[in-house]
């Protein structure tokens, strides 16, 4: 954004008016930018519940998007007044949906991290994705424990969408494959309602989405292609799907 001066409520109104007239995704993006501080402020109120602030901001942003899409200028309410309950609602829902899975015992967190490495090793050795029993053997734990660890790895998906997860620190970040990304966008834009959401995804997530659902590549193959672990691909895919789902949610006519 080139604007330096603090934005005013008038600016917000102008942007909404233009958005209503043109439907321009860039204006929508500008409105998101303008109100991120509000999301951050609200997300902070939930930060002592054991979830990273980045994740909460991301969840709150989904609420913000919904609010932007549903906001009606003519109702004469300030946007921030209108958006606050939607954003808070989204955050509350996030905690409710996570249920008991929020707290993962340390033992499981450790096994989950160890599993990540073992999965990569075994995938390399076998030339395909390993089974649970193969993982149990390699890790010298029971199948139950493997399942638990995988499950917790999923439930405890604290990595934010575009942040490299701490377990892949040394993985190469090679996502510059412009050709494929163009194809991804073309394919995905077939679903018109998705286009504005997909534009908000970081490059890498777009690529993963495309490779899995349009090229039919397996998670292991994508992991190799993108240079991150299979478990990370799995987490990212789940998150991408729920992000798209939330953003696409039909208007539910709450108004």
């Amino acid at each position: 954004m080139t604007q330096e001066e603090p934005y005013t409520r008038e600016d917000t109104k102008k942007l909404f008016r233009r958005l209503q007239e043109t439907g321009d995704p860039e204006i929508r993006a500008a409105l998101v930018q303008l109100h991120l501080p509000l999301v951050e402020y609200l997300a902070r109120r939930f930060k002592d519940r054991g979830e990273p602030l980045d994740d909460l901001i991301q969840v709150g942003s989904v609420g913000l998007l919904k609010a932007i899409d549903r906001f009606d200028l003519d109702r004469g309410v300030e946007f921030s007044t209108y958006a606050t309950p939607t954003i808070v609602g989204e955050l509350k829902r996030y905690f409710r949906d996570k249920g008991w899975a929020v707290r993962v015992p340390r033992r499981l967190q450790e096994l989950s991290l160890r599993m990540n490495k073992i999965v990569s090793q075994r995938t390399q050795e076998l030339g395909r994705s390993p089974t649970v029993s193969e993982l149990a053997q390699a890790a010298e734990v029971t199948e139950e424990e493997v399942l638990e660890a995988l499950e917790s790895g999923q439930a405890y998906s604290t990595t934010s969408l575009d942040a490299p997860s701490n377990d892949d620190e040394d993985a190469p970040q090679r996502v510059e494959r412009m050709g494929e990304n163009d194809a991804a966008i073309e394919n995905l834009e077939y679903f018109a309602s998705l286009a504005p959401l997909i534009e908000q995804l970081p490059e890498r997530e777009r690529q993963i989405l495309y490779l899995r659902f349009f090229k039919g590549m397996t998670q292991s193959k994508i992991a190799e292609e993108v240079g991150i672990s299979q478990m990370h691909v799995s987490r990212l895919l789940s998150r991408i799907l729920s992000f798209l789902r939330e953003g696409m949610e039909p208007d539910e006519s709450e108004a």
Partner: protein
Amino acid sequence: MTTVTGEPSTSQSVEMRVPPTAGHLSLLRTVVGGCAGREDFTLDQVDDLRMAVDEAAVQLLRHVAGDAIELTVTSDEDALEIRVGAETKASQPVIDRESFSWTILQALADELDVDALEGRTTVVMRKKRLPDLQAEDPT
């Protein structure tokens, strides 16, 4: 040859009913992941199925009319079959074949079908076992 008692000879299934709320979806995922994992599916396949059951259930939730979402996981010699169903409002199809959901489910399952009959919708997904796990089979 040793035969373990209780070893499946033909097919066997696990069934479950959960209240139709978003908070219960994780239970469905867990059960599907647990079944597929114990059935010696690969990690890629296990994850695909977990994601698939989640997607199917989310779509059902939007149209649910009854008090439960029902899951049946059946394993037979060559595949695992997941059925996720609920009583649904009649108005429109739960998963349109033109939708993004359909695309996702199709990529995740080897076979996909949606049965909509008399106010019930059931998403049926099958994931095939790898032909021979011992073989060094790339991709």
